């Protein structure tokens, strides 16, 4: 890094989001400590992605606040959030197809360019110098770091899934993040690709000191690399803590696997039949 960036602290306070009558998130609060890896997990439909979209500014929650280092950013639009140090990746790869890997990564820096678009028209002067400096920095700190040197002039559409995910991470790193939001960074990857990605995420934390919040389904990976785990179910936090504590939490086990107790299952089904009958 050319200069160390202060990792950010993220707090979510009493957040609620509903779509019509459907409560996607119901009064959720949690914190992400500076420089830590926090994982947001939960079964399908638990509200993880909705939560992610609230934190990155794509959705506006009806209640509650999102705080970056104590500053309320709930109503701030994504481009301004990018300037404040938010960077995110997407569950379905959202790269600029048709452009090269290098162009994709350089676009990550768009929010931080200090020269304006008119100055960028000139082939010399401050804007050109800024471009050259950016390119050198991207080559050194991101392309070498993520081991994508060999593909940097290739169009992204020609890359394998795992590499595309890595380019998306590279673009997020080019945004000089103080908090990095990763939406399912290893979804759909094979064992080897997953291990690579887990290693890169740990490296980002250790070498850049960036705060990381990720949504992930791969429990092995979550338990291996996170410092803190928050479990959502039906839009509410049902457990939080160290990975091993969360893993043994009976509520979490029940949410993921059912309770494992046949008597309890029968009871639950009977209760559900009752409510269905009453309705």
């Amino acid at each position: 890094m050319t200069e160390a960036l202060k990792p950010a602290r993220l707090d979510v306070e009493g957040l609620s989001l509903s779509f019509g009558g459907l409560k996607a998130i119901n009064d959720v609060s949690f914190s992400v400590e500076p420089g830590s890896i926090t994982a947001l997990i939960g079964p399908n439909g638990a509200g993880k992605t909705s939560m992610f979209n609230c934190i990155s500014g794509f959705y506006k929650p009806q209640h509650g606040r999102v705080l970056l280092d104590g500053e309320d950013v709930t109503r701030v639009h994504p481009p301004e959030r990018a300037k404040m140090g938010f960077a995110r990746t997407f569950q379905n790869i959202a790269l600029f197809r048709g452009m090269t890997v290098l162009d994709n990564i350089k676009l990550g820096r768009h929010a931080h360019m200090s020269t304006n678009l008119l100055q960028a028209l000139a082939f010399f002067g401050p804007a050109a110098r800024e471009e050259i400096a950016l390119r050198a920095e991207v080559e050194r700190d991101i392309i070498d770091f993520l081991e994508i040197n060999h593909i940097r002039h290739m169009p992204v559409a020609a890359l394998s899934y795992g590499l595309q995910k890595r380019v998306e991470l590279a673009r997020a790193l080019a945004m000089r993040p103080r908090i990095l939001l990763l939406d399912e960074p290893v979804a759909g990857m094979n064992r080897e690709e997953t291990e690579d990605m887990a290693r890169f995420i740990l490296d980002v934390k250790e070498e850049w000191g960036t705060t990381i919040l990720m949504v992930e389904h791969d429990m092995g990976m979550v338990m291996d690399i996170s410092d803190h785990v928050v479990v959502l179910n039906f839009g509410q936090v049902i457990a939080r803590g160290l990975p091993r504590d969360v893993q043994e939490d009976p509520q979490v086990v029940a949410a993921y696997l059912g309770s494992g107790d046949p008597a309890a299952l029968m009871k639950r089904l009977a209760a559900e039949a009752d409510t269905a009958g009453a309705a």
Partner: protein
Amino acid sequence: MSDYLFFIEVSLAGLGSGALLSLTALAFVLIYKATRVINLAVGEILMMGGYLFFAFAASMNLSPWLAIPLAIAGGAAIGALVERGIIRRMLGENPISVFMVTVGLGSVLVGIVELVWGTDPRTLPDFMGSAPIFIGEAYVSRKIAISFVVAALVIAVFLALFRFWRGGVALRATATDQAAAYSCGINVPGVFSLAWTIGCGAAAGAGVLLGSIGGIAPTMGAFGLSALVVVIVGGLDSVAGALVAGLAIGLVEALAGTYLGGEYKLVSTFGILILMLMIRPYGLFGTKEIERL
């Protein structure tokens, strides 16, 4: 005069009007690329450009060199207003609704022009001179030659801007993935405004050129339909496609109109359109949309 020379002259005239088609097509492409809206009012904005030039240069007696930028700025202002006032509010609506709004906008613009200037065709004050130009022995109308050079330069500048300018790259990024562009710090609504402003400005400029060649009339917006054919043949989201298809269609129209008779002009244009839709519905250089299931 030899047949050969005549053929060259017809072709040159065709390329000249083709360049104007390309310039108008550029307006379609810019707007479609950024906002995925097919703006059917491009032809009417082109007409407004012609009438604004007429108002500034003929009615107010301004110098043409002042009236041209004013007419372009007027077209750009209409584009900016329409984007901010109507199109942005309709984001996420059914594309057909947005398309219909642009059709309505076209009718409103025609109505305004008829109210203010009446329905009679008019000629624009001459600012290009009329001394013919000879390329070798072939004769080219001065106005068509100038229009060709101007249109070609403008398109070349746009191609370069898309490739090398950070704002152009931001527009391409927005065109590919709005959510990703938004989260990379690109001001997506700003890109929408910019595309509409520049696109409509380009259309107004094409209107000044077209009006100087053939005069202006409230019906000249029909030129936009030929430009729409160009855009579909070249690819809705491709600037290079607009250039190539514009020249090709201008050439075919001129040759068909001369050698087969005037009634074959539109038949050949729309024949190409139908053929293209059958073989490559996404156009020569357009992006093939892949639906993932």
